[in-house]
């Protein structure tokens, strides 16, 4: 609730400073620009729910984006659906390998994904021979996909909404989705009650990889260029959006609804700071301060809630 309130306050404040903010076209912009982040955040939330972390997603975005771009350069006639599918499969494979290492060998997720990040990023440079794929090499259909719309809804927003509906259902209403929470909140209890813990963990990283692959295709389409250093450090933004959205990094705690708000806050900040003429250099520092304040405020309110719960228990 605090999150929603801060979004409203920030929106009102920005709207007073610059009435351009709450126009339909600008809101559409915010949606399109937040789409990739929010798609990634769903995957990251599932990973965080199992008390894991995935630092390799920036590299996965770059790799799948680069592979798709190279495929499109070689075969410009390929339909966009195939390109997206290629990205998802490649990303999913990377995620599967990572999930395999983490679940079978009990390597800590942070280390495994750190290693994976280096490997995948290195291969991105290798497959592209350290060159960029620039806008003029890509087919027009692919570039127009980012700006196009589907029944009046921009493509990116449409995809993000579909992803959210799918995963909202998956996480909340399917058996496997509930297992993710079970594994995260108490791993040993989950194992004893017959949940295939290792498979759930492997699945979570595979889904994260697949979503990162999808995001890679969208990323390349949006910026109309694929580079070796695409999306470098994006994993930190995604983790930050999740944390603001109330997902705990120690596992078992987090909701899709919170996630939407967290990503929205991120997107609004990104959009609003230039609109109210904040210098681009201040824009680099402000997200850090906001995450810090958000998590500290969250900790304080949770402490008070715990205290109240404790008091109500005394007879």
């Amino acid at each position, binding site marked *: 609730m605090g999150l929603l309130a801060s979004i409203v306050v920030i929106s009102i404040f920005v709207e007073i400073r610059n009435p351009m903010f709450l126009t339909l076209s600008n809101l559409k912009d915010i949606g399109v620009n937040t789409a990739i982040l929010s798609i990634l955040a769903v995957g990251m939330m599932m990973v965080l729910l199992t008390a894991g972390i995935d630092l390799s997603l920036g590299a996965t975005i770059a790799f799948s984006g680069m592979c798709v771009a190279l495929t499109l350069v070689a075969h410009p006639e390929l339909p966009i659906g195939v390109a997206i599918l290629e990205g998802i499969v490649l990303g999913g494979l990377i995620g599967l390998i990572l999930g395999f290492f983490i679940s079978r060998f009990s390597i800590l997720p942070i280390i495994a994904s*750190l290693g994976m990040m280096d*490997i995948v990023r*290195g291969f991105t440079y290798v497959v592209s021979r350290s060159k960029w794929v620039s806008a003029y090499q890509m087919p027009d259909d692919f570039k127009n996909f980012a700006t196009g719309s589907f029944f009046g809804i921009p493509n990116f927003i449409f995809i993000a909404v579909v992803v959210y509906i799918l995963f909202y259902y998956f996480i909340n209403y399917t058996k496997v989705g509930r297992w993710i929470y079970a594994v995260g909140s108490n791993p040993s209890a989950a194992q004893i009650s017959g949940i295939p813990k290792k498979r759930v963990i492997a699945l979570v990283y595979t889904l994260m990889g697949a979503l990162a692959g999808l995001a890679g295709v969208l990323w390349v389409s949006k910026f109309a260029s694929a580079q070796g250093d695409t999306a*470098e450090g994006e994993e930190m933004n995604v983790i930050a959006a999740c944390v603001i959205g109330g997902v705990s*990094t*120690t596992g078992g705690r987090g909701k899709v609804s919170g996630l939407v708000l967290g990503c929205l806050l991120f997107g609004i900040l990104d959009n609003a700071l230039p609109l109210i003429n904040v210098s681009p250099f*201040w824009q680099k520092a402000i997200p850090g301060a906001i*995450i810090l304040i958000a998590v500290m405020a969250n900790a304080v309110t949770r402490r008070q809630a715990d205290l109240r719960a404790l008091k109500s228990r005394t007879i």
Partner: protein
Amino acid sequence: MENKKIILEEKTWNAKSFFFQWEWMLVVLLLLVHVFNGAVSPYYFSVDTFLSTPMSFLDQAFIVFPMMLVLISGNGNIDISVASIVALSSVIMGVSYNHGVPMSASIVLCFLTATLCGFINGSILVKFPELPAMIVTLSTQILYRGVAYIILENRAVGKFPSWFEYFGWGYVGPIPFIFLMFIICAVIYGIVIHKTSFGRSVYAVGNNRTAALYSGIKTNRLTLLIFTLTGFMSGFTALFLTSRMGSTRPNIASGYEMDIIAMAVLGGVSTDGGKGRIWGPVLAIFIIGYLEYGLGLLNQSAQVVMIIIGILLISSVLIQDIHIFGKHRVLPGRK
């Protein structure tokens, strides 16, 4: 039973448990790297190369030591803001010098900034023990680098006095100054980690925080101290890096935090806490450094190095996990 066996293994010296230690594996790896480099370049095997090559990779090594302490202290402790601390303190040093502050005072300012940044990290973690260090240092990482951008925007500052170059390029006899400083730091940290009660209490906290607290270790003060120390050591990296580059910008040292963590982990420090010895990371620093140098000779750029480091990182943890190496280091009851 299990408990007894492990203690016995630690007391009696036998060849198997001595040589099947992770550090020996690293020694072999380091030798392999040298053999590889020697095969690549016929001029490789000279004292000069051995001594001067480390100049190019030792600057980040100074943070590996305190990072070891951070990782050993467990509880999910990690510091990913170090690269931003380096950038911020370097920028402050550059800007203050260009605004008329004498160079020596600027260097002091650089260390003060770095220490303050570490202190802020530590105090947030102590005041909010429920927040994971990962998240806190993630946000301060963005914040510190952002402040560096606010101060300097997209410009670079340089024009340092000529004696300032000495830190990055100077020699003491045949040994580069930075190498000498590194050895001194390694010795100091080796003694602190393995021979002092402070070092032992870091391990104790990493193995069992609650037990450590109840046995009288001031865990909060320890956390604060370790993170402040990490900040302080980032000052060294800022100093040497700035001196070697001759100028500074807000985006210097980006990505260093991952390299530093990778070096510590390759050296056998567990991010789970309570595990790791000084020799491991020291060897890992040289393995990665000389490997990069050798692949540079082959004209292989950073990408191949990245792949190799990634594979090394995963396989090193894999091999240690199979319990051939360092079995006696794992306390009973821990996985």
